[in-house]
């Protein structure tokens, strides 16, 4: 084995160097692009302008609010359901697994085409019914609930996988029975026994959902809302440097989140064979 690896080493070095160049170059070039403006010399104007640019704060706040709402809803829906599937309704598990994987089969662009069709029913068919008010309310531009609904659907596959991995790693039934025989009620057993053991999975699911919502462009743009990603594209026309600078920052932010996630799931779970999941 040692002989073989020694022989293949130049190969490996070449592949690793090429990969490193390919993956690092766009990042480095983006930074250069933002600080080295042709004809002006190096400066950090693009980064200083970010906060003063119209729409930055409001679109970022909208994205964060959408993310918080999505995370809350997806966890409220999924955690009780997943625990119940383990404990009391194992027969429903295949059904829920399929239901939570379905959003993977429908690309976001197709999903938003469907949502758009439904939203047009509002003015077309339901204008005289009480439903109409609901249709108007969920499209309120200052907080579009319809985006939260769409993002929750899109997050289901990731959240399902994260929670499933966490529940696999613990013996829910024994834990809950122990809690129950010590006199805890169902809610108490859930909140004080199951949830603390699920903390890491819940955190994983939240981070993935956060990254998804912060970067989401397709649904928001086609429904005509203006969260962060849509705002970046809309300023790119006039202020190329600025939009790349904001992208660089948002990249760093997302990567920090995902690296945190990686260290959370890699740290204490190192003993578990997490790569097989």
């Amino acid at each position, binding site marked *: 084995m040692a002989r073989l690896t020694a022989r293949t080493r130049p190969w490996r070095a070449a592949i690793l160097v090429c990969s490193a160049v*390919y993956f690092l170059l766009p990042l480095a070039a983006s930074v250069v692009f933002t600080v080295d403006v042709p004809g002006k010399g190096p400066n950090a104007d693009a980064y200083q302008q970010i906060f003063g640019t119209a729409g930055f704060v409001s679109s970022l706040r909208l994205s964060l609010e959408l993310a918080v709402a999505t995370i809350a809803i997806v966890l409220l829906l999924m955690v009780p359901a997943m625990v119940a599937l383990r404990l009391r309704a194992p027969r429903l598990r295949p059904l829920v697994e399929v239901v939570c994987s379905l959003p993977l089969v429908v*690309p976001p662009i197709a999903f938003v085409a469907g949502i758009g069709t439904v939203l047009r029913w509002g003015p077309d068919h339901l204008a005289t019914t009480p439903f109409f008010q609901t249709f108007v309310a969920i499209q309120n531009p200052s907080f579009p609930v319809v985006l939260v609904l769409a993002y929750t659907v899109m997050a289901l596959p990731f959240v399902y996988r994260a929670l499933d991995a966490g529940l696999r790693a613990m013996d829910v039934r024994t834990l809950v029975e122990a809690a129950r025989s010590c006199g805890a009620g169902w809610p108490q057993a859930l909140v004080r026994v199951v949830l603390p053991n699920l903390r890491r999975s819940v955190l994983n699911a939240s981070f993935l959902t956060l990254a998804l919502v912060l970067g989401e*462009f397709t649904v928001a743009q086609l429904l005509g809302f203006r969260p962060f990603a849509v705002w970046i594209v809309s300023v790119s026309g006039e202020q190329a440097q600025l939009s790349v600078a904001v*992208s660089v920052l948002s990249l760093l932010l997302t990567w920090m989140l995902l690296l945190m996630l990686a260290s959370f799931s890699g740290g204490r779970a190192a003993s578990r064979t997490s790569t097989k999941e």
Partner: protein
Amino acid sequence: MTAAPALAPAPAETTAAPVRRRSAGWVPVLPLLVFVVLSFGVPVLAMLNGAFTVKDPTGGADSYSSANFTASLHGAYLTALLGSIRLSAVSAVLASVLGLLLAQAVVTSRFSALREAVLTASGVLANFGGVPLAFAFVATLGNSGVLTRHLGLTALGWSLYSFWGLTITYLYFLIPLMVLTITPALDGLRAQWREAAQNNGATNGQYWRHVALPVLTPSLLGGFVLLFGSAFAAYATAAAMVGSSVPLVTLQIANAISGNVLVGQENVALALSLDMIVVAGLVMAVYLPLQRRSTRWLA
């Protein structure tokens, strides 16, 4: 795991289970199912309905027909569909080969830190699509990008806003996705198999051709199909980068939805969406059995 009980890890389906109160077990699952039906089922059904509905332009009466599908498979729409399939296939093939090479280089490396770093980075980069990716490449290889200016690429006929420009951009998240998919399979290649092949006089090439690649084939194919699916569904990157200079089905749908092209094309957009779902469904139908097959080798 920290608070896991010290009891023997009994399988969940032990006979000692308490009396099942079957009546109420599905109650916590109900909100989830209702939510999915309302937020996902209704839009998808609306799309199905719309895709088969044709509006009479004069009277406004609706009738069911497959005219939208006929339209979605002709002219500019067909070009876009084929363009998407071609782009996804080419970038998925390239990413599969390059991802396999990179994963193999990392897996056989003696430095576990390198392996950890590459796998973590892959996990991050595989999730990195969309707008920031597009802008990173615009800043690098776009018309006024850093590399384009310093190397004078425009004079050589380079344009990022083309088929190959998009391919290079897509590889940025497809290669890491392949690394993540194929690494468990490469880990599953046992050293004994290579030794056995060598003892029987096989060369390195023969080992790869007759032992390693056949074992890897389900994982490789599964990975390829997964990459194809993600490239096929990608919209944000292309929209932020090329506008509509490359015909892609996602861009066509977006144009038709926003009424940029012709009024009354919304239902053709729905038919195109359904075409996409069919392709994505085929992808999943191929991927899942392959993935199940490949996990057999990883036990």
